[in-house]
């Protein structure tokens, strides 16, 4: 590889003996390195992808085909029956609808409250600002799991047990979202703010007409992460829901496990359906995802 750096190297001697042009020898080494990289990449890709691949394959097989040995890796005659069963008997449609309602509700709420609070903390003058901002940051230190017992009791007291309210309202504010939006509003050019004020823009109009349009990409990235978090929640929905009418798909998967081995293909189909919306979302918004991670501590 790098032996040429030390004058006459074994590599050079070897090259002279075999009488290969130096350039050629170099390209052979490069080709070997290249193939090695591809080999490693491919092996790792197979390992990483295998659980997802076999889940999709098994969702298209019958239960007896899944139990067949040697295993079947290619569904030559795909059978979509498991998907129909998942919708008909395992309430998958209802679970997915519930998850969608809850996740969209949380995203819209978090973006709205975070934009308002982030703006106020950045550009509006009021006395208790430092204290209230410190409190906002302090919420980042409180994991949801640590407050789950009193929160469960609060939900029961409010009469929200087993309802969308229980799944959405506790998550309508995001400390990390407020922090993030405050940062971007602080970075708005002073001239811009001054000019807007001279044009008679109040805070509300400035936020709506300038602040939000200018930061659309970041808002999008935050919304994406917020959706991921909301869609994937497990513990809280488990604790505050009781019936299929409001259960989210993550909890629904637990119910699915109980359909038994005879319907193991239905479990696989349900799993594919639970992951599909996120998969589509990520493929469509790949750029926002990477950008979001680039801006730092988005995952709260």
């Amino acid at each position, binding site marked *: 590889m790098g032996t040429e750096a030390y004058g006459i190297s074994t590599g050079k001697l070897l090259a002279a003996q075999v009488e290969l042009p130096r350039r050629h020898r170099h390209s052979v080494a490069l080709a070997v390195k290249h193939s090695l990289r591809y080999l490693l990449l491919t092996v790792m890709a197979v390992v990483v992808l295998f659980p997802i691949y076999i889940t999709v394959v098994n969702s298209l097989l019958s239960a007896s085909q*899944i*139990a067949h040995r040697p295993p079947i890796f290619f569904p030559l005659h795909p059978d979509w029956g498991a998907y129909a069963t998942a919708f008909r008997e395992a309430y998958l449609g209802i679970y997915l609808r519930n998850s969608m309602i809850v996740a969209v509700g949380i995203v819209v709420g978090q973006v709205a409250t975070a934009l308002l609070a982030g703006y106020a903390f950045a550009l509006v003058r009021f006395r208790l600002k430092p204290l209230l901002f410190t409190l906002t940051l302090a919420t980042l230190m409180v994991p949801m799991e640590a407050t*789950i017992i009193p929160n469960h009791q609060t939900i029961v007291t409010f009469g929200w047990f087993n309802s969308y309210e229980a799944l959405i309202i506790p998550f309508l504010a995001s400390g990390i979202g407020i922090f993030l939006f405050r940062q971007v509003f602080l970075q708005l050019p002073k001239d811009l703010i001054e000019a807007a004020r001279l044009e008679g823009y109040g805070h509300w109009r400035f936020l709506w*007409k300038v602040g939000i349009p200018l930061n659309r990409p970041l808002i999008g990235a935050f919304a994406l992460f917020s959706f991921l978090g909301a869609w994937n929640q497990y513990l809280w929905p488990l604790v505050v829901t009781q019936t299929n009418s409001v259960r989210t798909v*993550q909890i629904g998967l637990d119910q699915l496990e109980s359909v038994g081995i005879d319907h193991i293909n239905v479990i696989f189909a349900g*799993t594919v359906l639970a992951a599909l919306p996120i*998969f589509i979302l990520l493929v469509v918004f790949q750029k926002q995802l990477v950008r979001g991670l680039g801006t730092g501590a988005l995952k709260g």
Partner: protein
Amino acid sequence: MTPAAGPFLEAQAPSPDAARVKGLIAHAGTRRRRLEAATGYLMILPALAVFGVFVFYPLARAIWEGFYETPPFPTEPSRFVGGHQYASVITSSAFLESLWRTVLYVVMTVPIGIVLGVALAILANRKIRGIRIYQTIFASTIATSTAVASVIFFTLLNPEVGLFSYWLGIHGGTGVLGSPTLALPAVAVVSIWQNLGFTFILFSAALLAVPEELMEAARIDGASTWLRVRQVIMPLLSPTLFFATVIGIIGAFQAFGQIDLLTKGGPANHTMVLIYYLYETAFVNDNPGIASVMSVVLFAILGILTYVQFRVVQRRVFYGN
């Protein structure tokens, strides 16, 4: 006030109107400041209301309830026992064992997860033909939730029909997830796999920030791959490594879904990590008193970790980069 004339961004120089407006503002100073403050409070009110009801109040209440012993029968009132319950729970062997298992779980998941994530990111950080496909595959597990990943592996590890069980030569019996020695490592493998997509994207994004000239210079220098990784890439990745380590530990402490779906804390408590013990105590055994003590401990551990991380990240954002 004057309506905006023309596109907003063109208003560079103050118009004659502006001077008049400025004068008015000076006169209406106090009133204007009050109005501004009211606007500020109104804007943060929705977020603060949610924080008040669902973060601060329950936190205070959890700390408070730790002082009250839950009676054996729900009809009796709970009894104030002061710090006694905190002391007895924290020193109980069940609690310490759950904490120890959580630490084991952290040790099993975080280092391996990060090493794999970094390795894949470095491997795929080259503009070669077809690399996008590999990148997409490595990132793909980010689309799987904890529940999805757990159900996939639960089914593949099923001792009767699971493919992995078949490959491992297991048929019938308790299987991997029912084995006292293998259950926790198996849960760890599921978590590592599920988080790999996130870690890969995280480090890929960090590698994008490494100047290409630096990598080239190291290559021309004749540095071997390993040397290049150790002396050029790693120092530049260190903030991301720190970030990934801390959120990895926090995530491992919060690992609930995988335990619930794969082992339910079993066999014989071998996967009874702190968060699952808390859940069982609160919602299965109906003892909010003891569970509140565990909540407070969980808050203390994760709160400190988050604080440290936030301070370090903040320093990097504001003074470095």
